[in-house]
């Protein structure tokens, strides 16, 4: 990224956040630190192979204790210049209208591109060892497809076309400034389900979440809700029925891009979390360590960055945070008002102080930046990328929005290394498929029929660590259920998956089997498909039609079979 463009991005962010002049200086310093020495050389120097079939050299197992149990001198957390949380002026420009799904008339760009018969944009040589490639994706349509999958749940062709007209930069700010976007359509869809608003079953909760992912006009907000649900997780099996899980979901939606300290403090008082991690029973002289430990290990600092003593002192600080009538309640006589020493800082801490101290730890900015980057871009980010994001986080008063914006405008995000570098999570696969095809559905039982069997029981993760990551999504059971989901979609049962591919093809002027293949490859795979793979699709479809390669041979069943193959392909499992 050119330095000037980078700085402009910083300044734009700063202006949006209403930063003071002093903070801007820090921004600029961060900018120059990142820009010299040349970032590209150091990024290139560290190709970390993710799939490593050879065993790593062993360290003798007895050699080193993992975490030194004795206390280490800590760096006193220095306070970063803070932006007052309320100082986030709305962008004053005119609200952006969401691109509506107006049918395209003429001409169709995909048909044009098939005419040139070169759909492969990323020309990876067919048989090579994958090497991290930090050069950028150049094709605008591919970049847009990538952005909308990662910062949302994919897009139909009409959506992609409209966003392309808008341009990449405006699309990113459209995604970020979601509170300017009218999302009443999804609210009406949810209201039409007539679900009990006070007492939702797991099935209802999953259905509502999937409908939002599929039909929201604020895809980044829903994507962040999924992110927080995975990171600051709670689960139905322990929290139980009642308003709890839905309220937590709403909390994540409200705080989707809020500064992290505020979100953590809200989550610490969220009844679902207080049940899930036992804070409601954490009492004076009877501390319960569950929340205190996971606050540090899972939510902010990571394992091995604190001591057992810190866990105990943090637990004491949160005593008395309790529930009454299903709401947060401070039970004063159960709070331990004694002195605590937490991460080297002594005082009469309460839970809010603990969150503040945690936020001041340098490791926290690295931790949360890393989580966000891995969620949006790719695993194992380079140290300098993390450092840059962490400094953004600290310099903006722990702004999640600033970090996300920085990620979504970074060269790394649009690098070939990031492209298809992640396995789609089940929710992404299901919501994304429905959204991409423009399917009408009430998503009834989509959770229990599709998403859960693929390994993601929304609102009910297996344990406190939230969702699996990367390769953990793929095993024989989950892959089988991915294929079976795609099979159900390809059959196009009207009650569950209402769409009409035959008509779509005709209205897009598709004339041959080969053009039909290219249409689907554009829709599902950004047309980024090696020639050999494309040949498999064409050969398969031509085998089905038995000689007649014209549009007349393309009935629902044959197109469904082709679609099954496209969506079952390894590339489609990657996002």
């Amino acid at each position, binding site marked *: 990224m050119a330095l000037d463009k980078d700085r402009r991005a910083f300044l734009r962010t700063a202006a949006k956040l209403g930063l003071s002049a002093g903070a801007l200086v820090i921004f600029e310093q961060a900018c120059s630190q990142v820009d010299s020495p040349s970032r590209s050389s150091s990024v290139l120097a560290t190709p970390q192979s993710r*799939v490593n*079939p050879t065993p790593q050299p062993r360290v003798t197992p007895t050699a080193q204790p993992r975490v030194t149990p004795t206390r280490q001198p800590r760096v006193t957390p220095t306070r970063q210049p803070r932006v007052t949380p309320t100082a986030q002026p709305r962008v004053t420009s005119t609200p952006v209208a969401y691109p509506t799904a107006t049918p395209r008339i003429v001409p169709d760009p995909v048909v044009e591109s098939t005419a040139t018969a070169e759909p492969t944009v990323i020309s990876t040589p067919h048989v090579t060892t994958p090497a991290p490639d930090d050069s950028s994706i150049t094709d605008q349509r591919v970049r847009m497809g990538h952005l909308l999958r990662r910062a949302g749940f994919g897009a139909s062709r009409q959506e992609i076309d409209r966003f392309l007209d808008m341009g990449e930069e405006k699309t990113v700010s459209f995604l970020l400034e979601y509170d300017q976007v009218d999302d009443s359509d999804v609210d009406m869809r949810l209201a039409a389900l007539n679900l009990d608003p006070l007492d939702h079953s797991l099935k209802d909760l999953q259905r509502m979440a999937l409908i939002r992912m599929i039909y929201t006009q604020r895809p980044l907000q829903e994507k962040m809700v999924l992110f927080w649900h995975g990171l600051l997780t709670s689960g139905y099996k322990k929290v139980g029925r009642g308003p709890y899980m839905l309220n937590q979901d709403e909390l994540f939606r409200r705080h989707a891009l809020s500064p992290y300290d505020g979100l953590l403090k809200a989550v610490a008082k969220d009844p679902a979390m207080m049940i899930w991690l036992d804070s409601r029973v954490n*009492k004076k002289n009877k501390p319960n360590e569950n929340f205190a430990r996971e606050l540090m290990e899972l939510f902010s600092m990571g394992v091995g960055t604190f001591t057992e003593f810190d866990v105990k002192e943090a637990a004491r600080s949160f005593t008395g945070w309790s529930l009454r009538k299903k709401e947060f309640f401070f039970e004063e006589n159960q709070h331990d008002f004694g002195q605590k020493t937490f991460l080297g800082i002594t005082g009469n801490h309460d839970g809010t102080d603990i969150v503040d101290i945690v936020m001041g730890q340098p490791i926290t900015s690295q931790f949360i930046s890393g989580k966000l980057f891995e969620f949006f871009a790719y695993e194992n980010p380079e140290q300098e990328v993390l450092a840059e994001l962490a400094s953004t986080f600290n310099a903006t008063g722990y702004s999640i929005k600033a970090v996300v914006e920085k990620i979504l405008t970074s060269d790394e995000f649009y690098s070939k290394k990031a492209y298809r570098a992640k396995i789609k999570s089940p929710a992404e696969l299901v919501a994304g498929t429905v959204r991409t095809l423009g399917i009408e559905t009430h998503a009834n039982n989509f959770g229990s029929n599709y998403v859960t069997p693929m390994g993601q029981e929304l609102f009910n993760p297996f344990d406190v*660590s939230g969702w699996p990551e990367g390769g953990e999504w793929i095993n024989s059971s989950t892959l089988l259920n991915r294929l079976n989901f795609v099979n159900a979609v390809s059959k196009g049962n009207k009650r569950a998956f209402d769409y009409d591919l035959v008509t779509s093809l005709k209205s897009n002027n598709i004339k041959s089997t080969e053009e039909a293949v290219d249409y689907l490859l554009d829709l599902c795979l950004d047309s980024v498909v090696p020639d050999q793979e494309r040949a*498999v699709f064409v050969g398969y479809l031509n085998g089905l039609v038995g000689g007649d390669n014209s549009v007349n041979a393309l009935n629902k069943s044959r197109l469904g079979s082709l679609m099954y193959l496209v969506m*079952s392909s390894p590339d489609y499992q990657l996002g």
Partner: protein
Amino acid sequence: MLISRRNFLKSSAVLVPTFASLPLVFRRAVASSIVESGTHTTAYPTSPYPDRTLVVLQMAGGNDGLNTVIPFTDSRYYDHRSYLAVPGEDVLDLDGEVGLHPVLDKMKLLWDEGLLAIVQGVGYPNQSYSHFESMHVWQTADNDGNLNEGWLGRYFRELEGMEGSALPGLAVGRRTTPYECSAVDAPMSVVQNINRYRLAGSNKQRSEALMKLYGGSSLTTPYGVLLDNTLESVYKSSEALQNANKNYKSQIEYPDTSLGKSLKVLSAAIIGGLGVKVGHVTIGGFDTHSDQIVEQPDLLREVSEALYAFYQDLKAANKDQDVLVMTWSEFGRRVKSNGSGGTDHGAAAPMFLLGSPVVGGIYGERPDLRNLDKDNLRFTTDFRAVYSTILEQWLGASSEAVLGSERFDPIPLLAVS
């Protein structure tokens, strides 16, 4: 119709330009077909005990060992545990010193028949109190957390000659591959629900086209090998398991719990002769920070009843001599109970080894309640000694090859060579 990838490869040159460019699983398949034709030899070790199965039962969340194998003759237990302590008269006495929690009555029946070995005080140096870090230690058998493959995954990697086996590794009832069984190309199948474990709408043309896609382009993606291997496992294992399950007629009634259902599927695969080397089942919920007096007994009962039915089933099919069960949990719990009717994360805890191959009894030294390590039990047996026992004496594998250079002597708890 079971499509063999090897046959497919033999009959098709599409997308298979050169031998060297194939992913590992392909190379092996092709290599072994060369072996068959006598032009190449291989030094891959095969299992000396091809009929034996290890079943691993993970008790996730950190099971409270003190309330599982209870030192009911030690007054300190009652001092520390207040109302969570199980009264001595309720404990199922094993040796006059320790006894089982009363809900483990079915386990007690196995004990009475000499089918239950208990290893006391199992743990490792520098205990981690994080669920995930400690699980990682147990699963990789690496105290430093450097290894990124599970110990049984490494065992699989060393093992060859499994082409004839439809299900060398089978995990039932969970959604992810158990980390202890993971390696880049470990032949694990994961079955969450047997009724759903079949491919819908599959036909020959489509399956062949799909295999070409998986064998081809995915070579260039980071997850290509994983996706390739997994697709092969989907095809091989789903049909084999459905057939085995159809032919499986058990007279034993399993408890209607998720663990009971999982073990029943595992039993169908073992009895059906699908070549299961390692089976894996999981039960979660042992992280009893509160309400332990309600929650832990339910979970222990589920374990006890399901394992008892599993053993009876294998015995009726005359397979009990070939199956060894091992339970583990990432840690025990704090000796002193907390104020919320629960216990926080702790350290050493007992392990169960169960089945006809064991010599029933109590092994290892009971941790001393007078000599705690910051409120936690000190471990007396390294868990890797148990792994070493299983690797060397049950699976016939080299424990050094799997566990590394540090030697852990086997514990003499198996009635086998």
